[in-house]
């Protein structure tokens, strides 16, 4: 459930709000419906990881990845766009996961 809500909120917010809004979405969702810290972290992580992967591929596939193949050369990574996609998704995942974890931990702090 948490996974699905973060997934939907991340998809919807990205186009008109700053990128870090995914963190607020994951945080709030976990605060209200998060269960265990581990479950919340992995739900937040995988939701944002998937959303960012899909959104990036949505732009990059019709582009034949020519841009990502150039941009990856700015980073200390092997010269293949897949690495850039992986880093992108990981960063999104960690932010989403940590935000969800924070949400559920705060909820537990308040819970008696």
């Amino acid at each position, binding site marked *: 459930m948490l996974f699905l809500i973060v997934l939907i909120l991340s998809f919807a917010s*990205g*186009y008109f709000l*700053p*990128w*870090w809004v995914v*963190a607020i979405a994951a*945080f709030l969702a976990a605060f209200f419906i998060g269960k265990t810290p581990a479950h919340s972290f992995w739900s937040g992580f995988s939701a944002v990881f998937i959303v*960012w992967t899909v*959104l*990036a591929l*949505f*732009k*990059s596939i*019709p*582009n*034949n*990845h*020519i*841009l*990502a*193949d*150039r*941009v*990856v*050369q*700015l980073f200390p990574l092997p*010269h293949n766009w897949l690495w*850039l996609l992986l*880093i*992108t998704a990981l*960063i*999104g995942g*960690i*932010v989403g996961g*940590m*935000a969800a*974890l*924070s949400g559920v*931990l*705060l909820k*537990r*702090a308040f819970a008696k």
Partner: protein
Amino acid sequence: MKFIKALLSIAFTALLIWALDCKFGAIPPIGAFLNPSTGFWQNAESKNILATENLKLPGLLDKVIIKYDDNRIPHIFAQNDHDLYYAQGFVTARDRLWEMDIQTREASGRLSEIIGPKTLDLDRYHRRMGMVYGAENTLKGIMANPVTRVMVNAYTDGVNSYIHQLAPKDYPLEFKLLDYEPEEWKPINCAFLLKLMSETLAGGSDQFGMTNNLKRFGIKDVNDLFPDYPFNEDPIIPVGTKWGFKPLPIPKSSAGFMAQMTEGIKTKEITPGVGSNNWAISGDKSVTGYPILANDPHLNLTFPSIWYQVQLSSPTVNVNGVSLPGAPCIIIGYNQNISWGVTNVDADVLDWYQVKFKDSSKSEYWYNNQWVKVKKRIEVINVLDHKPLIDTVLYTHQGPVVYESADKKPAKGSENIPVGNALRWIAHDESDEFMCFHLLNRGKNYADYRKALTYFTAPAQNFIFASNDKDIAITPNGKFPLKFKDQGKFILDGSDPANDWQGWIPTDQNPTVKNPPRGFVSSANQSSTDPSYPYYINWRFEQYYRGKRINDKLAAMHKANVDSMRLMQMDNYSILAQDVLPTMLKYLDTTKMSAEQISAFHIIKIWDKHYAVNSIGATIFDNWWNHFYGMVWDDKFNVKGTYLKYPSYDRTEKLLLTEPNSKWFDISTTPAKETCADIVIHSFYNAVDELVHKHGQPGSKWQWGLIKETYINHLANLPGFGTGIFAAGGRGGVINALRNGNGPSWRMVVQMGPNVKGYGVFPGGESGNPGSFYYDDMFTTWKNGQLNELLFLRSPTEPSVRVKTTLVLN
């Protein structure tokens, strides 16, 4: 405990987000840059393009139709001129906004605002040499003319209408990478682009080096090594052309003056051996009976390209060619009646004056036997994450004192007075170059061409012309100061009014030739005229090598077509090698050589003198000549701590061919007395041994294209965004003067006739977006020496299979 855990987690998450949203040094904000909703992924353009697109834009008077062809080049059809230039601004910004922004920032000394202290020296230099001062004056000229005022304002509105509709996710990639926002375009930015061009093409100076030469060698040797007319020349205006005007009186020379030493200052040098070509042949020489015009301006090659191809059409004009991103009009191109192109004139329009200040407050300077007040101009340079730098620049009546305290060691006996060097530069003057292009774009005949040229000030260009009336012409043109001979060859005494520029050469007395008997006109930056021209333009020009080759080829040409011109633009034949190689080879004796030297000798002996990509002879000759030139001059001119100007290849050639026993061949650091033979022989040994050391035995690894590094970088030198190093022929001094990152920035050939046909290509692509399929789609065509047939639509409804997309603005 639970609270602490929660707070720690929240704090860590917040810190993580903050770190990912922050720019650290040159590292972009990683989260902002990588996220797929607003980061760089948004700049990936789809291969599926819409067939039609409609946009509502504020400020347009009528509907504008824009047809994009298969290279994504826009063909703009407007109902009036205002809308035409508005649309030009809009489509150019859409493809090149970041390039426009960074170039105007560079010109106006505002890079540090976005980059930080790293670019502060460059910004200071541009401020201190008066780029902003010059642009402000040019803007006055533009705004004083109702035609150019409307044009530049409309262009500006078009650029801004694009900027206003951008959301952060739409910003061009480089804005995201450097983490800053596009700002409002201003009319003065159009002027800044002209100043940048003036800096590139007319912003160098030999005066400091020549003044140091004078101190070191004395006037006799300087006159011998740096003559006012070269040994070899084939001037732009053919020898024997009648001038047909009564010249103004030439100003009297000033009293002799020796500037104080200028050690430690190194101004922007004039780089020899690079340069542009243009030529036009008369109908008699062409297969169709109508003239053919060709032009390839050489500049630093970058992605995105310095040129932006576009067709501009309204009820007053229909013109095709290349524009400068950030400026209205077509700069090089053609319409249904005329075609034109440009190469640079190496005119001396930049002079340094030594200023004597009254005291260390530097508020007054000595001029015409009295103390005159210095004007002060405050330049505020904002620096990213630092306090702004406030720089006060002193202005004499000549211009800004760019170098305030050049001089740390006054010459013996001179008074202890602070000195500096003031800059008199043509780019500081009020001007209206856009009017020239406005008129050329609409030109119908020779008279229109001549009228347009009167509006052009700087940087002076060799304007070549061909028309459907079967006229061809060329005019080294710009605003040339009226000078006495050699005025500005050395640093001038700023206190003597006789050293000021004494007016101007009347525009209609600029050198020009129309339909010369030889049946062609051409230029390759060489001397504008032979010494019979009554005025002084400069003591030095680019050397004759390319010009001579062009003229030799054209003189022999009959029934030429577009392809003959295209092949000539790719010509790699070296006139330098033709001039010197037979003499150099005569000095060699194979009995005293090593095995490698003998095999190199046999290769170069049969070399065809072409700098072809796979030529081994070219590599040997090039290295040999470099060693020879270095051995002759290095011990005299490579002096630590003093910047001296080396003699030219042309003068070195004269030395080799006609003065084998000259004192200049003697290497001062050896006890023996060397002659020409010693230098030629030893430079050959050194050159070959060096090649063997670096590349092994003479063979395929010595191919010229592999030895010479050729590349095109992204404007910000981003790795992976340029071409990388590629193998190519050509060299400075041959027509295809492609070397390192400098070369033909646009190649164009126009066949005049009832149905004018243009061909052209620039290295790169129309889009400045590295995420576009049109970022470098023309590079391979350019590299292979091919040209694209340029689509020139007569009307927006003319059917063409090459039109891929229609954009309607209203």
